[in-house]
């Protein structure tokens, strides 16, 4: 991986780590995510990066830089959109409705993921 790619990857990874910390600190989100076991795979379409959040016991247990086995939800988007969504700069529902963000999950899981953004940032 080249230097620029590493920088971009690190930027998004930092953003995702930050998101993970915020989610795990929030008591209301822990209630929302209670008994919810999922692996949320994030595919960055323009850089080819893949990340995976492992949700379990009401929190994000881990962030991996690769796809992981498990009951999966797949999110796909460009790097800039991913960063905006996971930093609260972009309403994920708007991104989804505009086709910028692809979310392959059941209706219920989609709403749950979106509710995280609503709780964290009110967007």
């Amino acid at each position, binding site marked *: 991986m080249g230097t620029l790619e590493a920088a971009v990857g690190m930027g998004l990874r930092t953003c995702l780590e930050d998101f993970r910390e915020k989610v795990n600190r929030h008591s209301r989100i822990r209630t*929302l995510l209670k008994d919810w076991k999922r692996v949320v795979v994030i595919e960055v379409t323009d850089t080819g990066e893949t990340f995976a959040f492992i949700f379990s016991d009401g929190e994000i247990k881990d962030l991996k830089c690769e796809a992981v086995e498990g009951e999966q939800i797949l999110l796909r988007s460009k790097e800039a959109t991913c960063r905006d969504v996971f930093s609260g700069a972009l309403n994920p529902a708007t991104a989804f*409705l505009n086709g910028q963000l692809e*979310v392959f999950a059941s*209706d219920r899981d*989609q*709403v*749950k993921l979106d*509710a995280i953004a*609503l709780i964290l940032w*009110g967007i």
Partner: protein
Amino acid sequence: MKKLSQLAEYVALSIGGALAASSFAILSDLLSLATGIWLLLAIVLSGVLCMVISASVAELASMYPSAPGIRTYLKAAYGDRMSLFLTFLALLMVPIFAGVESYICMLTIKGVFPSLSLYWAVTVVFVVVISLNLAGIEIPRRTQMVMVFTFVLSVIGIGICAICGSTSGILSIAPRETAGGGVSLLNLGGAMGGAIFLFMGFEWVTPLGRSPAAYKHMIPISMPLAIGFLILMFVLFSAGLTLRLTPVQITGNQTPHLVLGTMIFGPRGDYAMAFLSILAMLTTFNAGLMGASRLIYGISREGVLPPWLSQVSLSTGLPFRTILLVGFAGLFVALVELYYNLHMQAALICAAIYCLLYSSLLFAVPHLRRRDAAAKRSFSSPVPTVLQGAVGVVMLLLGFATVFSKIALGRTSFLWLCQLMVFSLILTLYLARRRDKRRIVPPQAKISTVIVEGGEVGDAG
């Protein structure tokens, strides 16, 4: 094997979107326009028309995989306001159609249990469906698949039994004078128009792909396959109806399948048909309530609809307010339709709106190809652009013709349709303007507090 299983799942979802208890009533209505071989031909040709539409929808879905259908596709093609107008029209159609569907289904059940109160039956059905949705009880996809194929194979089986039990046999199906006294051949066009409604809803599978790869082949193939199954089902069932029932038994009878069921299975055959009607209604209700509530939730999260609609229960993770809104709106409209006997007008209006939506989707594809040729498309419709446009025009004309297909009801249906369109337009202009005004408020003035009330999450607005 896994791929075949996945394809079967998508086919079942597509069929499930089109299945409705009112399909039997539609067939009865069609038999007043065309009989015998002409009706069967009308069903086949209408199905082929829907296959053309499905190719366009599949291309749009491949451009925006997992997206919530019309809102996204039409926004990309025509812009925000036009998309909102058509989306609101589609959402207004949901409770209206729920009323039609519940009426026909309860009428079927009343045929088996004559003392049943339609008002109470409709109310109970809606309350049960709303409660199941609020509790977050989802029918697993595999179970849905079993329900759908049970229905399809049962109806096919009944059709075959009816045909085999006929003294004259299927080759004797000949056009006979319709109830209206017209010649069936000339009414083929009208019957085709009516038969389109047997397939409407097949496109509900498009937001349900499990992966991007599904939009390359599986979902594009699933829709025409689903339509193929439906063609076979309706052709065999219509043939059975035609061969076994007299025109008097069919015409104006919204539950001809009850009569056929009794004829084939004996005195308790109507139980079997009532069960099938309930099965069909449940697939429609479930998909309609869930789909509409999620769409309203999404539009609320966009900032168009009020933020209180996007409140989510922390315990279930469900947008309970939109579920309640759609559910009780459906119940209210159903009871109004029942009280004023408006289900026929409601059916005509729903059909007309659907024709407009299909037309919009058909025109969207060539428009996006011209405007955004470089956009990624994992599937491209093989239907020539000219043909897509021609079918789009046909759908528009069909929608208009449908409203006036019942001469006695044409004027009122048309007026109601116009009122719905005006209402949708006013809603669009007002809400979009309000959202745009809120967007230009300076960031420091924005309220971003999250209110937590009794386990609910919402925007302070």
